């Protein structure tokens, strides 16, 4: 069964593109570093964010009820969906009941998770993703490859070619300003024609019943300022207690994601427009199960900033698609096995456990430790090939007995230098594909120590 290693190997094989992808995302990581450096209490802020999330998740039912009460009081309708199917049905029903066939959407990883777009399109609703990166991948019939930078895997020439075919831009034109302008005009028409706007929710404030949506383009605002019906989809974990706590996250989010001090627009919705409707769809889809799992509970704190992806040396060199899950990278490697451990069993092994992700996570999720914990779980469920398990068992057995270990190691050290190179570096030697084996010393440390201390 193919998984991350095979997809990653294909990505790496295009050496120029892999390095370009790596450099692009490293540059975003450096911007994060620079932004963090402008905040003197950055580490304290991360700690505060982590604790706020732990506190909130620890009382999530209460905060959700408080949020619902206040949201309803402000005139919003609040719907609950246990899973993706219920979520999709609710969104569709809201549109169908009003005869709405044209929907504009701003970024929502939750709706990607629920595969909302194909569901709606199969039922006659035209869905336009309005975030520029998302529109690009939508026109290419691809999923986003990064939760914040959906088209980071594409070069401007590829986008130029796409727009030439879809939007009528000049052939061969690839200037980002020119292409963005074309997208602006194209999307403006969609906004004007839409019957409803759907947004995600970055934060939901329990004390006010308000929802907060952060964008740089203003597409969430355009999509809710023009059509009168606003559907906002949120996972249960998006709650924060009050505006006071919200401040901590608003200071961390954009700096962690792109290195900006704040997104261009941070919009606070409290109830509908006077002439409109606001529907908030609150979704579980496995989140309460994750909350109940002590080992992986903390990763529910994720605010979807993408910093872990930008810093991950593996993500940068394998690309979002190699993870095969709506959310890729380190956080994806923790969330995906929770949804389907069999399908995503290679993801926790697609990490060198370097820990950089944990150090950039604004809510201090111990990502690399959760990734390691998944490895134990995957082995416990016997999802690792039998021969790998057996080899580890054998190795562990040998290592328990000093004599066996020394004998085995001595054999390896003695045999390797005398075997023909073609045998040593046969195709079974995965290490040896691009690396020499270490030189095999004649004597072990123990032997050196003994002779130094006068023992044979």
């Amino acid at each position: 069964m193919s998984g991350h290693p095979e997809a990653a190997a294909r990505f790496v094989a295009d050496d120029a593109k892999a390095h370009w992808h790596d450099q692009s995302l490293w540059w975003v990581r450096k911007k994060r570093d620079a932004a963090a450096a402008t905040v003197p209490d950055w580490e304290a802020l991360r700690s505060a964010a982590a604790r706020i999330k732990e506190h909130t998740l620890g009382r999530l039912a209460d905060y959700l009820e408080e949020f619902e009460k206040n949201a309803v009081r402000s005139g919003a309708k609040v719907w609950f969906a246990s899973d993706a199917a219920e979520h999709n049905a609710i969104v569709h029903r809201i549109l169908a009941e009003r005869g709405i066939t044209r929907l504009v959407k701003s970024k929502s990883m939750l709706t990607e998770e629920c595969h909302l777009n194909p569901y709606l399109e199969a039922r006659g609703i035209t869905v336009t993703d309005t975030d520029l990166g998302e529109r690009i991948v939508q026109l290419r019939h691809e999923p986003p490859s990064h939760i914040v930078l959906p088209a980071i895997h594409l070069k401007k020439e590829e986008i130029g070619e796409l727009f030439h075919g879809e939007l009528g831009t000049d052939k061969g034109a690839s200037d980002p300003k020119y292409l963005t302008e074309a997208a602006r005009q194209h999307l403006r028409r969609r906004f004007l024609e839409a019957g409803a706007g759907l947004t995600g929710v970055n934060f939901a404030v329990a004390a006010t019943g308000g929802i907060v949506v952060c964008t740089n383009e203003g597409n969430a605002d355009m999509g809710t300022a023009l059509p009168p019906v606003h559907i906002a989809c949120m996972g249960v974990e998006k709650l924060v207690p009050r505006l006071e706590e919200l401040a901590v996250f608003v200071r961390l989010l954009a700096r962690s994601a792109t290195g900006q001090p704040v997104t261009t627009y941070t919009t606070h919705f409290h109830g509908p427009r006077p002439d409109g409707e606001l529907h908030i769809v609150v979704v579980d889809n496995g989140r309460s199960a994750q909350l109940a799992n002590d080992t992986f509970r903390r990763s529910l704190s994720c605010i979807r900033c993408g910093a872990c992806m930008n810093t991950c040396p593996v993500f940068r060199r394998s690309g979002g698609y190699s993870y095969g899950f709506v959310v890729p990278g380190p956080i994806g490697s923790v969330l995906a096995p929770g949804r389907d451990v069999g399908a995503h069993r290679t993801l926790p092994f697609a990490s060198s456990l370097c820990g950089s992700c944990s150090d950039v996570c604004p809510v201090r999720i111990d990502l690399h430790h959760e990734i390691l914990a998944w490895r134990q779980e995957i082995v416990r469920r016997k999802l690792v090939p039998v021969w790998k398990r057996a080899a580890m068992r054998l190795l562990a057995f040998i290592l328990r007995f000093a004599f066996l270990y020394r004998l085995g190691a001595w054999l390896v050290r003695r045999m390797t230098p005398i075997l023909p190179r073609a045998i040593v570096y046969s195709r079974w030697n995965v290490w040896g594909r691009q690396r020499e084996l270490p030189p095999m010393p004649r004597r072990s440390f123990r032997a050196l120590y003994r002779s130094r201390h006068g023992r044979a």
Partner: protein
Amino acid sequence: MAARENILEALRRAARAVALPDLPKGGARFADRRRQLGEALASVGGTCVPVADRAAADRALATLAIYREAKKIVSLVPGVGASSLEIGAVSDPHELEGLDVAVLPGTLAVAENGAVWIDGSVLPHRALFVIPEHLVLVVDAAAIVDDMHEAYARLAELPVGYGVFISGPSKTADIEQALVIGAQGARSCTLLLVGPMGERPAI
């Protein structure tokens, strides 16, 4: 609704008591809040223009090319700019398409990130801050706060309602990380900062 009960029940089963941490209260971070605001706004592609009073703001506005060349204008700030249409007569925000300039009042400005809070209750239509080609925001210099902690502390005292923090013009870097200003919303954002800075605003 069964889903509601099931979800709340499942969340309750996983409840755990963790105390809220002490949070930063915000306050004296920047020696010169006005300068920090100007720098932060410039770093996100906006422009800050300090003026002595409303009349000076009006004069400054008149010098801006985006205003001089504008055909369709809405100003919600008395004395600063002149609307070319009667906003009260606009019933459908779609009619605002093609708006060249909107002049809007801001409640406060945040030095650390160049953001201006627009209170939704002043907007006859929400589209007014996102549909125009160019945005001009008018804020009292006395209403500059240091950071978002201060900003939200002040907002918590105001009636709850629709509002938006705007930091500079609309932008995107979705094509090869190349920054492009004017993605979907305003192509420019000018902040007219009115009056003297005065004392630090009390929280």
